[in-house]
């Protein structure tokens, strides 16, 4: 994950507190999304960025999860995310991210 982004997200989490913050990812590659989720919960696995060894434990979701989709107006979701949601298995994304949150929570 981009080092500058890590620094800015760390500052936001420090300033606002993790309870009022939620992260939404958009990676189509689930492996990449998992690494980003790990970085924002238990710290940068590459130990290269500002989040190395920093456990922000932010709640991380993926825009393709059906639970998020249900909160977004259908026309907006279709226009912005529709094509990607057709080529990615959204149920698999949901299951992966539920597991990630369960694994890294608390």
């Amino acid at each position: 994950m981009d080092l500058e982004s890590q620094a800015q997200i760390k500052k936001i989490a420090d300033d606002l507190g993790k309870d009022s913050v939620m992260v939404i990812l958009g990676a189509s590659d689930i492996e990449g999304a998992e690494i980003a989720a790990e970085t924002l919960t238990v710290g940068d696995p590459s130990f290269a960025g500002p989040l190395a060894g920093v456990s922000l434990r932010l709640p991380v979701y993926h825009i393709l999860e059906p639970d998020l989709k249900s909160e977004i107006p259908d026309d907006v979701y279709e226009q912005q995310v529709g094509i990607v949601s057709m080529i990615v298995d959204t149920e698999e994304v949901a299951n992966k991210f539920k597991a990630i949150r369960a694994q890294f929570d608390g």
Partner: protein
Amino acid sequence: MIKGKNIIIVGERDGVPGPAIAACVMAAGGNIVFMTTECFV
């Protein structure tokens, strides 16, 4: 889940980019505090 929350958006160039997620978040009533579009290639 989204409404009223401070949302950090990490989009991806080859997946769903930041601005597309931002449009969804705004429509759902979330407050965007950070947005980026990464490239993992």
